[in-house]
């Protein structure tokens, strides 16, 4: 996937917003890829965390919003404890989710869950899932 680096593709507002919500400075990332190598969901995400960092540095809103990465992230904090630059990548993923959720765009729709699924799932799965993926 080519990344188009141009002023018109760069969204400073998004960069600012993600920094504010997460309290994390993604500019510190030097692209070592430890996060991508540590991610248990690596094979299921469309954009690896290392690349998410680069896209954040570029403020590439389009590529960031197309990535499923924040929505497949399970907040396991493995990337965070291993990051040599001490960036809490988990908080950046949360910020990327919140940018969407705060526009009232839910990612999981509780009313679409089948009754038999609700009967099967433990409460803890629903509480945590709805907390992470609904507004």
């Amino acid at each position, binding site marked *: 996937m080519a990344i188009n680096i141009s002023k018109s593709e760069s969204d400073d507002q998004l960069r600012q917003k993600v920094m*504010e*919500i*997460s*309290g994390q400075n993604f500019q510190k990332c030097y692209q070592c890829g430890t996060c991508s190598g540590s991610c*248990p*969901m690596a*094979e*299921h995400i469309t954009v690896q965390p290392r690349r998410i960092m680069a896209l954040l540095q570029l403020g590439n809103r389009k590529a960031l919003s197309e990535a499923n990465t924040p*929505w*497949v992230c*399970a*907040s*396991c*904090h*493995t990337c*965070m*404890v291993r990051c040599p630059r001490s960036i*809490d990548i*988990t*908080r950046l*993923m*949360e*910020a990327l989710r*919140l940018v969407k959720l705060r526009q009232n765009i839910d*990612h*999981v729709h509780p009313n679409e*869950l089948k009754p038999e699924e609700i009967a*099967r*799932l*433990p*409460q*803890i*799965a*629903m*509480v*945590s*899932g*709805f*907390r*992470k*993926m609904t507004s």
Partner: protein
Amino acid sequence: MKISYYPGCTLKTRAKNLESSALASLKALGVEFEELPRWNCCGAVYSLADDDLIHLIAPVRDLIRVKERGHDTVLTLCSMCYNTLARANELMKSDEEKRYTINTFMDEEPDYAGEVRVLHFLDFIRDEFGFDKLKEKITNPLNGLKVAPYYGCTLLRPKEVAIDSPDRPKLFHQFLEALGASVIDFGSSTTCCGAYQVLNEPEATLTVSHRILMDAVNHGAEAMALTCPLCDYNLGRRQEAMKEKFDFGDFPIYYFTQLLAMALGLPVEESHFELNLDSSTELLKNKNIIKESA
């Protein structure tokens, strides 16, 4: 030390086998505790946004209840509750500005500044009760049970609330050793099972959970012990779906407290094995840990 016990949303129902075995064990060990009156759900996950304080209200309210009770320690069994309460507590201790905002918002409650200690059952046993004392209480050792300890995420990450080394933990190993089990070390013992993604990405979660189980099997484990009701669902209950997709199933999964209760010689009913996979009971019978005559 005065202990409030915090159950959390799943322990009265789906994870009754975790609660019942843990509380029976604590009584058998002579530990005094009281279930926290008027506890509320902690929210299961800690808010990771700097500007989101509203989701801290629930866990902080629980901590205030503990303080109000005149207790200095809150004991958790579920590792997600542990993580959420411990992180909320750390924030109330260290972040003056947010502490002020939260205390002001909850003006009907007494002010809170992280006075309570949040412990998980496992670090309580290591640091307060002691493994040596625990070993003396074992009457039905888990001899010959090859069990893999699965830590998951929330007991070990982030570092501020880790109950052991996030990279090379040994606490759960030591706990199972104290019960007399043969502990199987395996690489995936701290790898995420997919957690709440079971709601959104059930197939991805199934794949990562299956890989964790296979890693344990390949290292010679005949069972796995864990601490979290969500891990238990992903690694235990979902073996039904693994049968179809990976031809894998019937691998016994236990809560750590069920194994403790058995090793302490407590009645098998306390462990509510009917909530585990059938293979879990069979294995313990084969090892003569559940006595057939009992």
